């Protein structure tokens, strides 16, 4: 059978050494009444047939070309350098466990240390952890940090933060009796003000103002940020937000129907002891050689148990590695270049869309980055029409925000070449 190694003769020899006659003797502790005859599953398939079945399922999905994908909402098509898969597909990386034995895991540990530094640099904060599950849980964990740090049990969500992130925040909050309110007026009960920059619609918010307001109320400011935009937009550290959290999918990860991606979280020095999850630090051997090892484990569940800052154990290391490879490939100016291209194209597209009869920018007075909301006539029908032409058009946000009926958000990145924009415009006019 596939992936099994013992031959019948091996098994016999092993039973002999053990001194057992049969499997049953090894399973004596299991109450007879619990024993199964067999699993109610079909027998296994050959590798070829397995792959054909799986490929057939993949074939029942519609793949929109990246250049004609204008839908974002938290997951974006971007150019992924071949280098990323070349590194993450190395078995030495992807078949290793969490680096408990540091000396035999320096590859993973150093890569994570580099990832931590890259995130800290992007956010302009002091320390990043080794990764979290996704942007939603990263924001929720940030809120938990604020709750523990301030001892206050209310968090304020300002503006259009990704609706799914807010839902996850509520679920996390409920467990610990934390109230999640919408608004931007913090008070004495407020543990943190959470905002997204750019927000779920792609619009820029007054990050400085919100941070100031939070601090004035003795609350923390939590900025949910787009890592690519940070090569151009002021990073949380520059407006002295306390915690930055967000989704790292754009850093070299494929959409993959929503996961696995990677949540990042970074904070100021004072908050490091409250950070959830893994953290890698330097350590030295007897000869003074520098190495890397898991650090500040006293925050974590395996030491602190119920008093841990979080329950997270397995995180998203390999995705963090992908992000590290991506950022190393891009470098500071490559990253800024793709951000600028995305910005320019989004603004060019916004202008062309707004010029269509019956169309208008939903928030003409607001600035945006590479995603923006437009009000379009019969949005639903229109999106279906685009789909028929192989274009994944804007996202209908009314599904989450009733007040935004008829509003679509469009996004542009370096994959949407000028000709793709033209195709979109033609498809809309046709």
């Amino acid at each position: 059978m596939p992936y099994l190694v013992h031959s019948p003769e091996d098994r016999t020899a092993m039973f002999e050494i053990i001194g057992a006659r049969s499997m049953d003797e090894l399973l004596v502790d299991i109450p007879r009444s619990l024993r199964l005859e067999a699993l109610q599953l079909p027998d296994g398939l050959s590798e070829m047939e397995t792959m054909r079945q799986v490929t057939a399922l993949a074939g029942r999905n519609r793949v929109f070309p990246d250049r004609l994908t204008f839908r974002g909402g938290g997951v974006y098509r971007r150019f992924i350098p071949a280098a990323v898969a070349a590194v993450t597909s190395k078995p030495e990386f992807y078949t290793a466990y969490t680096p408990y034995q540091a000396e035999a895991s320096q590859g993973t540990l150093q890569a994570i240390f580099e990832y931590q530094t890259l995130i800290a640099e992007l956010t302009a904060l002091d320390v990043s952890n080794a990764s979290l599950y996704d942007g939603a849980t990263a924001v929720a964990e940030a809120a938990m940090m604020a709750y523990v740090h301030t001892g206050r049990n209310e968090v304020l969500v300002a503006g259009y933060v990704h609706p799914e992130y807010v839902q996850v925040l509520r679920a996390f909050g409920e467990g610990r009796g934390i109230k999640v309110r919408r608004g931007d007026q913090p008070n004495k009960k407020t543990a943190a003000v959470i905002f997204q920059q750019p927000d779920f619609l792609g619009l820029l918010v007054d990050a400085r103002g919100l941070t100031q307001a939070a601090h004035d109320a003795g609350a923390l400011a939590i900025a949910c940020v787009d890592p690519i935009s940070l090569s151009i937009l002021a990073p949380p550290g520059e407006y002295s937000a306390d915690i930055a959290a967000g989704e790292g999918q754009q850093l070299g990860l494929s959409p993959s129907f929503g996961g696995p991606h990677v949540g990042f979280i970074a904070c100021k020095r004072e908050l490091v002891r409250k950070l959830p999850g893994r953290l890698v630090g330097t350590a030295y051997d007897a000869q003074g050689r520098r190495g890397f090892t898991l650090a500040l484990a006293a925050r974590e569940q395996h030491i602190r148990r119920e008093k841990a800052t979080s329950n997270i154990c397995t995180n998203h290391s390999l995705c963090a590695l992908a992000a590290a490879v991506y950022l190393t490939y891009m470098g500071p100016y490559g990253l800024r270049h793709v951000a600028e291209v995305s910005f320019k194209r989004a603004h060019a597209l916004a202008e062309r869309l707004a010029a269509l009869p019956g169309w208008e920018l939903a928030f003409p007075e607001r600035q945006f980055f590479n995603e923006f909301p437009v009000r379009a006539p019969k949005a639903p029908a229109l999106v279906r029409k685009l789909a028929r032409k192989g274009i994944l058009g804007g996202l209908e946000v009314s599904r989450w925000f009733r007040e935004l009926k008829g509003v679509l958000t469009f996004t542009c990145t370096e994959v949407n070449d000028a000709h793709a924009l033209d195709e979109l415009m033609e498809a809309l006019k046709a």
Partner: protein
Amino acid sequence: MTTEPLSFELSRPAVDPPRLPDAEVAGPAPSDVLPREALRSRAPGLPRLSEPESMRHFSRLASMNYSISENFYPLGSCTMKYNPVLNEQAAALPGFASLHPYQDEDTVQGALELMWRLEQALCAIVGVDRVTLQPAAGAHGEWTALRMIAAFHHSREEKRTEVLVPDSAHGTNPASAALSGFRVVEVRSGPDGRISLADLESKLSPQTAALMLTNPNTLGLFEREILDIAEMVHATGALLYYDGANLNAFMGICRPGDMGFDAVHMNLHKTFTTPHGGGGPGAGPVGVKADLVPFLPTPTVERTNGHLTLDHRRPKSIGRVRSFYGNFGMLVRAYTYILAMGGDGLGQASQDAVLSANYLRKLVETDLEMPHQGPCMHEFVASAHNLHDTGVRALDIAKALLDRHFYAPTVYFPLVVSEAIMVEPTETESKATLDSFARAIKEIVGQARTDPQGLHDEPKNLPVGRLDEVAAARKINAWLQGQAEDPVLRWKGPLDGGPKEPG
């Protein structure tokens, strides 16, 4: 092998950025339209390396790792089994990897069908009614299940504030309980390494919301009295939660659902061969009995005459536990594995896992202390306590194994065994490998008597020798008070080290 500099140390200011597409359209530059204060004032200190340099950098880092691809990885409780390369091919299919989570349902029927089939298969394997595929890992699944359990009691207007957790439990259990708002009450293990029914009895109360149990427990021992335990727990109106990290012990042999568990999490990155990735991503689906179904997180995947939909309208749901629908790429891998193995293969896998564990246990039982009686299930916990007088500890044995090209077992867990050495061979390691591992243990234990210092000095054949974690911790504390130089928790370039404009 030698150490490798950090990418930041290899960086040089004037290295060209990669070639990238131009905007091609007339649009404003950010600085044209955005207010100054919205803009970044100083470029982030990312490294500047050419592709050949960075590829070699990461290739060298890779070669500094042990991994199942090259090394026996008997890490107890982690089920480090062979990761089929086929799974990787499947997950990389554009029909999966390129799907946007917000595509319309009728364009992702294949993805939803896969999720549906995987749910069905997992239901059959653990004996539950429904499964949510959303949790990203085991701990996430534990917490998700406890949220459901809380909602369940709440829906029956019961105030239950305590969760019972055995002292042998994994740290995520109490942590998940606490983060879900419960008070954690520890239940003691008896001398036979199994939960003490007497102690359980005494801790159970109307406050009890649930008992979290791992079976076989973290000592690799099957909780013989599981049926009585289930009865006791249910009698008090509490629910029974199953930590599925050890599911590899009995696929096709028995099912948590039949044992009376109401909620069950599974680690697809253990039992179902999705690679561990050096610390994730994984997937921690949770299966529940009918009573808990209304509380499942949204959305669920529903199938009505062949058409699949995502159900977001579930009034009693605990809501969302993460964005989108789960670590889909991992679900593809697990489903691929289940298809290839089939019911017959999975059953044999568990039997081989148990056989291998008992075989290896037998081979080393004269070298190390065996605190509990066998047979064990898929793993066993030994103790280095018998070497106490030599000054050799479990940690030394771990490091000595590294020098012999084996990854180390889990050490110092579970906490109920002193000098614990937790060994899980899995079904994908050959008898020859187990034999050579046993020889290594014998050799090391022998050396403990003759040359303990030699063992304290290991590892010697790795890029770095034993790292001084105590000194490292001290330095971090100093750093947190601003009294130590980088690099500690991150690299930091010279203050003016922010790269200049590209030349």
